[in-house]
């Protein structure tokens, strides 16, 4: 049952191939379980979506992230909308490693994203123990955009 180990010579899963094996075994067991097509679809879709979400976030494991939740129907002229914006701005301001220019830029992107009626805002706060590289900084800005313009 250690067969999957060789598949992950490079990459994070090399540390825990047994978890990948367990997932494959679970999938094979599902095939024998006589469950409904609806259940199969639910499990299939769940694992695909969870995989995709984890993949998108994987490059940013070294960064602290703050999610702001609110209703997407919040009118932009309500005070609570300003509170969400101010909160995001404050969090970025407390990021000691992200350059003010980058923070400003990403804030500008967020401002523009208002047009997309999106209240969810994702800001990044640096991880205290690992400094992001320039490449990663660019990626995180791209990601912010990706998140706000789905």
């Amino acid at each position, binding site marked *: 049952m250690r067969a999957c180990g060789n598949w992950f010579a490079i990459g994070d899963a090399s540390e825990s191939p047994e978890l990948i094996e367990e997932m494959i075994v679970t999938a094979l067991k599902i095939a024998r379980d006589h469950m409904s097509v609806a259940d199969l679809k639910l499990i299939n879709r769940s694992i695909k979506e969870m995989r995709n979400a984890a993949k998108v976030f994987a490059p940013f494991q070294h960064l602290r992230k703050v999610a702001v939740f609110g209703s997407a129907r919040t009118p932009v002229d309500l005070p609570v909308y300003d509170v969400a914006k101010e909160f995001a701005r404050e*969090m970025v301001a407390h990021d000691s490693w992200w350059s003010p220019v980058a923070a400003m830029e990403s804030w500008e992107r967020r401002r523009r994203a208002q047009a997309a009626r999106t209240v969810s805002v994702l800001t990044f706060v640096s991880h205290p*123990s*690992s400094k992001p590289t320039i490449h990663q900084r660019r990626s995180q800005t791209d990601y912010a955009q990706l998140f706000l313009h789905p």
Partner: protein
Amino acid sequence: MQTGKARIIPVVLLNRPRGNYWELWMEFITDRLLKRGLISEEDLSFFKITRTVREGVAEILHFYKIYHSARWVGERFVIRMNDRLPKNAIVDLNKQFADILRKGEIVQATALPQEKNEPAIWDLPRLILTPFRNNFGRFRQLIDAINSSSTA
């Protein structure tokens, strides 16, 4: 978080200026859940209602002031910290949180071998304990106590 299935993160419920949205929600939680014993008093530690953005930001930054992250290694709960704690702080934590320890004490240590897959935080000091896997509100209170401690 309450069931230990999700890792503990700071949750801020932010009111708009002069707003009382979250106070109304809190009334429901208190009256319908807490008073009936469906949740514990400690579970209220998982979130904080704030009236200003400044307060909300401070809550999040304070959460990561000394506390860095945590994970399970078998039956041990390993808390990674940005700074070492002084000896008397460890003594205080052991007194305050004796109720959550299944065996042994809270000890200050270095990374366990099982943590070698997280090299970026290998050098951080640790608090290691063997707690009961329930009453996770107390885990949050432990994190708060760590963050309010002085550093070595």
